[in-house]
């Protein structure tokens, strides 16, 4: 097990910064996610750690050793790719044994270790199959076994679940978590899926446009997203500029609501659709009119126009409301998020 430390890591392609000044620590044995939209620099950062890209600036340390100049094949890292990247002309056992053979291990030991790790990933007895004979989920398990069997210092996962269908993805997520905690390997996981990041990680690094936006544990990131970008990426549906801020409060639609405001007046407000109470005749709250609704079974989502707010609000509720009806909206206590305005708010 090893700890990873990145300091000021950058990758420039001409004028374009694919990654710029990326710094974070990964504690030994922990699971860290790099979360962000495509092109945010998360994969570039991963590739620099693996050694496929040379950093333009900054350092990578594993257990205090600077590895910038260590050849990629000597870094002792396990890598799992989105498309599995199994050798198609080798059996499952040969795939898993590939890294052990490079390390000059005795054949008997290789055989033993191979079946041990196939068991760990839940594929005992599949040694003689070829990758093409396995399902996507099984292939990814083989890839995981192949990466882990060399007992890497760090396990790097590049969107390993993205090629799987929804059901399998959920299943593999639990498997990944189980295998990671059983082996206790320090892991860095690249994903654009906030749910994967939240359920798997000890810590999450949110990235955008090559930069680290925020670092925190899943609970912090989910409950207190600090910026509009993070909130939007985590699925906060309503992000808008309020009427005005006061100390410890925010005015929306002519009403005053308590919120932890930091005194800066350029902030935006975030509200999850599930954090808004909606009623046809509420006492306290601001008025709106239902423009559109979508039926989703247990919960319906309504699009509500609110005078004074540039974009309509999304509200999720179990109650049934006709389109065109006048409603009163009220944010739940403590649900108002105050966000750094690091994103353009476009009128819908």
């Amino acid at each position: 097990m090893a700890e990873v430390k990145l300091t000021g890591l950058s990758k420039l392609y001409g004028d374009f910064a694919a990654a710029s000044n990326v710094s974070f620590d990964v504690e030994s044995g922990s699971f860290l996610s790099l979360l962000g939209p495509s092109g945010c620099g998360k994969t570039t950062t991963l590739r620099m750690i693996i050694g496929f890209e040379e950093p333009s600036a900054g350092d990578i340390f594993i257990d205090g050793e600077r590895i910038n100049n260590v050849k990629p094949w000597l870094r002792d890292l396990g890598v799992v790719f989105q498309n599995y990247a199994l050798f198609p002309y080798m059996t499952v056992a040969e795939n898993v044994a590939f890294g052990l053979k490079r390390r000059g291990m005795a054949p008997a030991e290789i055989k033993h270790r191979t079946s041990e790790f196939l068991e760990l990933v839940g594929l005992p007895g599949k040694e003689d199959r070829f990758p093409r004979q396995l399902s996507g989920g099984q292939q990814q398990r083989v890839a995981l076994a192949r990466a882990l069997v060399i007992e890497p210092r760090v396990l790097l996962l590049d969107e390993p679940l993205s090629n799987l269908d929804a059901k399998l993805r959920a299943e593999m997520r639990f498997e990944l978590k189980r295998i990671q905690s059983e082996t206790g390997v320090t892991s860095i996981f690249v994903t654009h899926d906030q749910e994967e990041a939240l359920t798997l990680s000890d810590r999450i690094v949110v990235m955008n446009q090559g930069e680290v936006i925020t670092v925190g544990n899943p609970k912090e990131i989910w409950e207190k997203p600090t910026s509009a970008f993070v909130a939007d990426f985590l699925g906060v549906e309503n992000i808008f500029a309020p009427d005005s801020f006061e100390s410890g409060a925010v005015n929306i639609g002519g009403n005053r609501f308590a919120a932890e405001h930091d005194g800066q007046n350029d902030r935006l407000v975030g509200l999850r659709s599930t954090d808004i109470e909606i009623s046809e005749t509420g006492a306290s709250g601001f008025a709106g009119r239902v423009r559109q609704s979508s039926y989703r079974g247990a919960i319906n989502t309504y699009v509500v126009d609110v005078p004074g707010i540039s974009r309509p609000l999304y509200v999720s509720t179990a109650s049934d409301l006709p389109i065109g009806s006048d409603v009163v909206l009220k944010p739940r206590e403590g649900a108002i998020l105050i966000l750094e305005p690091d994103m353009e708010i476009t009128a819908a």
Partner: protein
Amino acid sequence: MSAGAKRETYIIGAPASVWLIVLLVIPCLYLLFQSLTPLSGSGLSLENYANLIESSTFQKALRRSVIVSIWVTILTVLAGYPIALVASRASSRTRTIVMVIVIFPFLLSAVVRAYGWTVILGENGVVNDFLVGIGLIDEPLKLIQNTFAIVVGETHVLLPYMVLSLLTVIQRIDRNLEAAAMSLGASPPVIFFKVVVPLTLPGLLTGMLLVFSLSMTAFATPFLLGGPRSPILTVLMYQYAYTLFDWSKATAVAGVLLILGLGFVILHRFVSRRLMRDAEAKS
């Protein structure tokens, strides 16, 4: 395919088919028939072939043909892999330059190419001048009008076939496979032999069969660079036909070449079909 579409295909293909039958198939069959007709007497016999196989000139030419082809195949593989790798991995600009250099010999007539090699390898050629000039040798080396010159010339001509065969398969390699191998501790040479070669095997075999059979049946380059004292089969056939006017031996050599050629086509189809099937099963 519907019956109508099938008929259309036949109609479209008819002129070309007639052309091929009249100008290729019939002459080939006539040639085979000739080769089976003994000089003395009538009826069909293998007499011409028997005479041919006994002759030491033919044996030497056959051996030379095979040796040249093996060398050319080896050399095009050795040169083809690096070129194909560079061409597939480099920037599009570099790729264009490499491909133009590789394809260029295609565009030259065999005579021009052979003359070029004479300038380089001849007694007063560039190589000999240089070696004598730096005092490495006293007398010019015999680099032309021999088997060596044929190998050099044929390698030059046939290299594009190998490069193009390899390029098509190299471009299809999933780069993540190389990345995975690297992360597992494989250095670049190991990656080449353990990942690139297995994945490019179909293209490699296609290229090898192509180069070998084209080298066996080439005429102009071996004729111009090898000279009359080191004939390969094709040159021998020419000598029998036009220098010695021994048509029975010439047709027999042609028969041997025809059968060898067909053999390669069948072998190639068989091997590539197998590889295709494997590749399909794998994907």
